[in-house]
């Protein structure tokens, strides 16, 4: 099997997804993901010249709703399901760095 994906690639992707993998899992998933990519390569082999790219499997565009308010969820019900709450807000562990 060609080097479709390296162990380092898998470790990087796992890190992005906040997954902690053992060495054994890294090995196993590297092999499995390579097989998935090989399957995608089968599709790549098809002649798609003249086929327009699609962004979605459904033959639909412009699924829209009117800008009208509808009631959502009751705060007390939602917050009751949260692991931790303070001042009517979700309490979360400290975060480092800003994302955007």
């Amino acid at each position, binding site marked *: 099997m060609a080097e479709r994906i390296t162990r380092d690639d898998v470790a990087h992707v796992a890190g992005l997804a906040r997954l902690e993998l053992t060495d054994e899992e890294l090995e196993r998933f590297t092999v499995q993901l390579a097989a998935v990519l090989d399957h995608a390569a089968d599709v790549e082999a098809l002649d798609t010249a003249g086929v327009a790219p699609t962004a979605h499997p459904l033959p639909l565009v412009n699924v829209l709703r009117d*800008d009208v308010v509808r009631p*959502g*969820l009751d705060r007390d019900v939602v917050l009751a399901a949260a692991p931790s709450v303070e001042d009517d807000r*979700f309490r979360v562990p400290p975060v480092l760095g800003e994302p955007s």
Partner: protein
Amino acid sequence: MTEWETVVGLEVHCELATATKLFCACRNAFGDEPNTNICPVCLGLPGSLPVLNRGAVELAMRLGLALGCTVEPSLFHRKNYFYPDMPKDYQVSQYDQPINVDGVLELADGTRVGIERAHLEEDTGKSTHVGGGGRIHEADHSLVDYNRAGVPLVEVVSRPDLRSAEAARAYVNELRAVLVATGASDARMEEGSMRVDANISVRPVDFSTLGTRCEVKNLNSTRSLGRAIDYEARRQIALLEAGEQVTQQTRHWDEADGRTHPLRSKEEAYDYRYFPEPDLVPLVPGDAWRTSVAESLPPLPAPRRRRLAEATGSATAAVAVVVERGLDDLVLAALAAGGDAQRLVVHAEHDLAGGVGALTTDAFAALTRMEADGALTATQAKAVLAELVANGGDPAAVAAALGYEAMAGDALAVAVDDAIAANPDAWARYLAGDTKVSGFFVGQVMRATKGQADGRVVTALLGQRADAGG
């Protein structure tokens, strides 16, 4: 010594003034009680599905068309990251196929700034960091309010066409004016409905390639924006002049210490793993929709400024103020009603900041006519105008009621001669070329005439007396 040029591009996030969020029917409102506008979609609960808000698309198109963009078929992508302000662990945004591309924003001084794109995306929830004095890196924990999660945003990305802090501020002011004119957003920086990030680099003035840039965040006012650009340019120039390099990174503006601090470098940049959002189909606004939106646009600031400048021949700065105040229609109507172009603009620029009140177009026109004919001095006209704004009425009647009657030229000449006779020392200084003394004489004549004299006429009379040999 190298001469440096600052290069700035801005990314401005604008919250759209819709009734509901981008993908769900929760209320879009600022300042509501925490977590009262939430539902399964904006909380990212399993099994919920987003449906795009037609109103948000319409406002995005209004803004795009007002910026001269092309409205394109567009797609939504997921931008993946783990941060509690987005409960889904991704933000839905537009990536390589945004709705609006390739426009231009014309600033008040005529500078044209390229717009690369203006795309739709959803806002995040609002985090409050508790402990560590509110500083994110020292916080003990954070509290999240999801009322803002899913509120529709348009992110307007400019090209790196700005060359100074002043130009960047002018760009933000102009964009705000367009947002308000189109009704796309209330554009209040202090409420966070308009948020600005700046990409800043420097280069020697004769270089055509761009220097390494830093992106500066946390700019909460146009004042912060200007200060941050000046600081960041100085910092980068100092590095380069010391033979060092600028590192591409994201930096945080600290308003209190007036500096930027590194947040993360290019190597640490987030890998967002964008991929097409499978729960949303493509957005392809048809010609009829685009045309109806384009036709419903109000007159925009730049063409309004051009129209006013052409009609009155006034200076760029005055025209910009009058249009910003929304007084250009009044000035143009008063001009058509026989008003004096220059005086209309001067009053609109300086004396109507608090609104027009009871002032009518015809009264405004007549007032400037009286002024132009010499029936009122500039000072008197101001007073009459204030009365017209407060209580309305006819300017001639108001002027009479205030006791303003044009002084006959003879009476004024007598007053000038009296002032000269009463102040021989000052007059000697005037004759010796001390022009500052003319202000003293104007003041004397004004006092003697209870403010009814026209200062310019007094100055002219003084000159005549001097030429006649004192």
